[in-house]
């Protein structure tokens, strides 16, 4: 049994996380051959940074994210989150948001957000209060009693984000969280995420296929290539914050996106 988690009130922004990825490799063994999914990946992420991973399909960006989440172990190298390895999922340090909202359909929005707290036997009133706060943070105040099938796609993903935030982990991992949403919702959600990130100061590692989304959201964009998956470029996005819609048409934005696109075209 894991120790009782922090029972202090929900206080976003209390912690940010540092991530150190050193010489990480991942080899999948199949019956006929070994597939190298990741080769010698090193990346240093400072606390509070918004880092986006982009790259063609099969470049191992999702695999890397699963390893940061403790859902998969690397074959070589080390991963440290706040100076400690992550041999298994640890929701106190890392919150994960998937492409599918992955909400439990038999629970209400509130109960879904409470789920990770309930796993740790946190008293009901305490976890309800935290869930209400987390839902408020993602703009879903008053929707806590609804079941997932009564929520739209964007709202479901907000609930999922609230669930990732509810234990106030220093690191938030997001695996193409908006890929299943329509474009309008996607843009709104991007702004929402930036607002939440600014309010909480989390370290965010975000995987996407959309170059526009990458440049729009990120402090840093890490470009990966496939076969074997490795890092080919690491850009700092110097656009000022808050990011606005007008920047999408600007020269800086275009230059940055072109640079990423050239890498991806080369390796795809």
């Amino acid at each position, binding site marked *: 049994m894991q120790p009782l988690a922090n029972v202090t009130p929900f206080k976003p922004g209390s912690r940010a996380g540092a991530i150190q990825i050193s010489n990480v490799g991942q080899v999948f063994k199949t019956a006929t051959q070994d597939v190298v999914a990741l080769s010698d990946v090193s990346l240093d992420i400072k606390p509070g940074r918004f880092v986006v991973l982009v790259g063609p399909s099969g470049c191992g960006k999702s695999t890397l994210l699963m390893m940061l989440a403790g859902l998969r172990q690397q074959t070589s190298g080390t991963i440290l989150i706040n100076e400690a390895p992550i041999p298994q*999922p640890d929701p106190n340090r890392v919150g994960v948001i*998937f492409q599918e909202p992955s909400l439990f359909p038999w629970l209400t929005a509130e109960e879904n957000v409470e789920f*990770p707290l309930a796993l740790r036997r946190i008293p009901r009133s305490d976890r309800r209060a935290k869930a209400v706060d987390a839902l408020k943070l993602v703009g879903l105040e008053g929707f806590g009693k609804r079941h997932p099938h009564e929520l*739209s796609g964007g709202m479901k993903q907000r609930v999922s984000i609230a669930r990732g935030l509810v234990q106030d982990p220093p690191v938030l991992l997001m695996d193409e969280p908006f890929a299943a949403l329509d474009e309008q919702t996607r843009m709104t959600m991007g702004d929402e995420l930036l607002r939440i990130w600014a309010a909480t100061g989390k370290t965010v590692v975000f995987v996407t296929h959309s170059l526009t989304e990458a440049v729009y959201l990120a402090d840093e964009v890490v470009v990966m290539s496939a076969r074997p998956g490795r890092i080919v470029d690491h850009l700092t996005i110097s656009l000022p914050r808050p990011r606005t819609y007008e920047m999408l048409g600007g020269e800086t934005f275009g230059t940055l996106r072109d640079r990423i696109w050239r890498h991806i075209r080369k390796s795809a």
Partner: protein
Amino acid sequence: MSAATLRRLIVVSLVVLWELLPRLGVIPELFLPSLSSTIAAGWNDAGEYGHALAVTLYEVGVSMLFACGGGILAGAIVGSLPRPRVLIMPMVSSLYAVPLVILYPVFTVWLGIGSESKIAFAAIYGFLPTMLSTAAGIQTIDPQLLLAARSMGATLSQRLTRVIIPAAIPTVLSGLRVGGALVIVGVVVSEMLISSAGIGYLISRYRTILDSPHVFAGVLLVLAMAIAFNAAIKWIERKASIWQTGTREGQRAADEIQAGTIQPATA
């Protein structure tokens, strides 16, 4: 006319026909006694039927406990572990086509002609569909939900009690519906074959002395039992699987809600 009204009309006309046809002599009373004489026959011997009903209900209840408990347990094991699945499923599938009633004489030899043999037979009869749907329910759980639970630090037992079981409930219930119906069939059939008590026994005994009203009074009781069981399952389904209903309608409602009330928050 709505389908529901039409349905009610059909039931009412069947009831009316049941009363009228024998009375008018279209059908001999021996083949089908009128509804009123059937009810009268049952009413006059209410004590006998009441006792028979109690025996049958007891047998049905205990068999359901075994069939459902065992079926859910076995289905959970077979559904979640590949190895037992490979070993057991082919056997179960071929067993499904065997008329299990051939086992009943054996059970009467082993367990006597009292309730025990009926319970054993009916429990096995209802066990298979319950087990098969539980296994199917567990195998079809969205793996993404399990991954999400794991990412939140859920242990194996927490994943079982908080994800796998609730996710499987709707499929398990539909298995219970079939399994429970078969339990009723199993109990009544075995009572009719070899026994000394129960509604099936009464039906069978009155048939040998060609007392049609008393036979049909028993049939009515079985009918009522089946309808009550169905209603109970429906009620449980409504209570337990709210989350499964109205995915599309819920979606539409949610879209409207969002268009009306939710604004992109700004900070």
